[in-house]
C-alpha cells in the first residue's frame, strides 16, 4: 500500500490513467475537466508516460480519434465534461456498438444555456442510453480507484464496452484530498495488459462500423444489450478483486446508516458525502433515516436497489438534473420504474436541486428529507419539487 498523499482529484485521475499505461489520450480541454488532460499532456511531454497525446479540434474529433486508436488495440483514455460530452454524443454510441473499450472520465457539468461551467448531472443524463458502462465516484479515492477499475472492466474480453467514470465538476474534480495512490507494481497485478481480440490489422482485414439493414439492426441492438446486462458480473468480480488486493470495497449501491431506516435519502455523486452529514443530524433528532447512494448507473443495479429500499416506507430521491416537461429528476424516474412491480415498495418523492454548481448544504438535505416526509404524510402529490429556488 502506497503512502497517503494530498493530491487534486483531477491529477489523481491522470495518475490512474498513467499507472494504467494508457497508450493513447485524445482529448480537448474543457472546464472543469481541463486539469486531467493537462496533467496527462505534461506527463507525456516530460517522458513520464510513454503514450501518444492527440490534440484535436473538438470533442467530436476526440472521441473519433479514440475509436481509431482503440480499434488498433491501443489502451485509450480521454476526459470531457458538459458541452464536450454533448459534442461527442453521436460518436459515443458508435464506440459502444463497435465494442471499443475506451475509458473516459467525465467531470459532470451543467449544459447550456444559460452558459454555465459548474457542476450538475445534466450531461450524464443526456448520455444515459448511449450504451456505455457508467460509474459514479463520490470522492478522490474512489475517482482514482474506479478509474483503474474502469480499464479492467471495459477491457474484459467478455465485456468490451466503453466505460465512463463520473465525478462532480469542481465539487470533486478541483478538490485536493488525501488519498492512497497505488504503485506501478500493484496496478500491474490488478490490470493485465490490454489485448483487443479483433484489432485492425492489414494482415487480417476486418470491417468495423459497417451498416446493418432493418433485417439485422434489431439483432445488433440485442447483442449489445445482452453484453451490457452481462457486464454486471464482471463489474462485481472486479470490485471483489480490488478489495482483495487493496482492501477498499465498492458495491453497486452503497448505504449509510440504512439498516433500520424507515426513510431513505437517495443521492448520486459527491453530494452523497454532504448528505451523510445531514443523515447524522437527522438521526440525532430521532428520525430513522439512512442514505442509499447508487454507484453504478449503467447497467442499472435493479436487484441491489430493490433490496436496499425494500424495508423503507419513504424514499426521497435527490436529482441534480431536470427533465423538462417530464417527471422531474431522471434518477427518480428510473428508481420509480425499477420499483413499480415490487409488492413492498416505499413511497418515492422526487426533488431536484444543486443545478449549475449550486451548493446543497447539509441543512438543505435535512429540509429535503423533512419535506419528503411531509409530502407523504399529507398526501401532497407532485411529480417533483425544486429545492433552493427563489420564488
Amino acid at each position: 500500500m502506497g503512502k497517503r498523499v494530498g493530491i487534486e482529484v483531477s491529477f489523481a485521475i491522470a495518475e490512474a490513467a498513467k499507472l494504467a499505461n494508457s497508450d493513447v489520450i485524445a482529448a480537448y480541454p474543457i472546464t472543469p475537466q481541463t486539469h486531467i488532460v493537462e496533467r496527462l499532456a505534461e506527463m507525456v511531454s516530460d517522458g513520464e508516460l510513454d503514450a501518444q497525446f492527440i490534440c484535436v479540434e473538438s470533442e467530436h474529433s476526440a472521441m473519433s480519434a479514440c475509436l481509431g486508436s482503440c480499434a488498433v488495440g491501443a489502451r485509450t483514455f480521454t476526459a470531457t465534461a458538459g458541452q464536450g460530452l454533448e459534442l461527442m454524443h453521436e460518436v459515443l454510441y458508435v464506440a459502444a456498438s463497435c465494442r471499443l473499450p475506451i475509458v473516459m472520465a467525465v467531470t459532470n457539468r451543467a449544459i447550456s444555456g444559460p452558459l454555465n461551467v459548474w457542476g450538475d448531472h445534466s450531461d450524464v443524463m443526456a448520455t444515459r442510453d448511449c450504451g456505455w458502462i457508467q460509474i459514479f465516484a463520490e470522492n478522490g479515492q474512489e475517482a482514482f480507484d474506479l478509474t483503474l477499475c474502469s480499464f479492467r472492466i471495459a477491457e474484459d474480453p467478455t465485456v468490451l464496452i466503453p466505460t465512463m467514470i463520473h465525478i462532480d465538476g469542481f465539487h470533486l474534480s478541483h478538490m485536493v484530498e488525501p488519498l492512497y495512490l497505488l504503485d506501478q507494481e500493484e496496478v500491474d497485478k490488478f490490470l493485465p495488459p490490454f489485448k483487443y481480440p479483433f484489432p485492425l490489422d492489414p494482415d487480417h482485414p476486418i470491417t468495423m462500423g459497417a451498416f446493418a439493414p432493418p433485417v439485422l439492426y434489431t439483432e445488433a441492438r440485442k447483442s449489445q444489450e445482452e453484453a451490457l446486462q452481462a457486464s454486471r458480473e464482471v463489474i462485481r468480480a472486479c470490485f471483489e478483486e480490488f478489495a482483495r488486493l487493496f482492501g477498499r470495497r465498492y458495491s453497486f449501491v452503497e448505504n449509510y446508516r440504512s439498516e433500520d431506516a424507515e426513510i431513505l435519502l437517495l443521492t448520486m455523486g459527491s453530494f452523497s458525502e454532504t448528505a451523510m452529514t445531514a443523515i447524522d443530524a437527522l438521526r440525532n433528532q430521532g428520525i430513522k433515516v439512512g442514505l442509499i447512494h447508487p454507484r453504478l448507473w449503467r447497467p442499472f443495479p435493479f436487484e441491489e436497489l430493490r433490496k436496499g429500499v425494500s424495508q423503507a416506507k419513504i424514499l426521497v430521491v435527490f436529482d441534480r438534473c431536470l427533465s423538462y416537461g417530464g417527471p422531474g429528476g431522471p434518477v427518480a424516474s428510473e428508481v420509480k420504474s425499477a420499483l413499480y412491480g415490487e409488492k413492498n415498495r416505499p413511497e418515492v418523492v422526487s426533488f431536484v436541486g444543486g443545478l449549475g454548481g449550486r451548493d446543497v448544504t447539509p441543512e438543505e438535505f435535512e429540509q429535503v428529507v423533512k419535506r419528503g416526509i411531509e409530502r407523504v404524510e399529507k398526501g401532497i402529490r407532485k411529480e417533483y419539487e425544486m429545492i433552493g429556488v427563489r420564488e
Partner: protein
Amino acid sequence: MAKPEHEITWKDLEVGCIVTEPGNASQYQTGDWRSQRPILNKERCIQCGLCYLFCPEPCVKQDEEKYFVADLFYCKGCGICARECPMGAIQMVEEGA
C-alpha cells in the same frame, strides 16, 4: 455468411458486428431496391461510356461487344445513366411492366 441474413440471430453476430470477410459487400443484392430498370437501345448507343462513368453504384460493365450494360444484381434503378446518355439510348421502364 453461411446463413441467409433473415435467419441470423443476435447470437450469430460477431462482437461489435465486425465483418470478418473482406469485401463481402459484393454479396449484397442492392438490385432488389429497384423499381425501374434501365433498358439499352443498342441501335442508338455509341459506346461512349458516360453511363459507366456516371453510375454511382458502380454497376455498369462493358460486354463482349463493347456495349455498356448495367448489372441488375446491383443496379438500384436510379436512372442517372438514362439522364446522362447523350444519345437517349437508355430508357427507364417500370419493373414487372
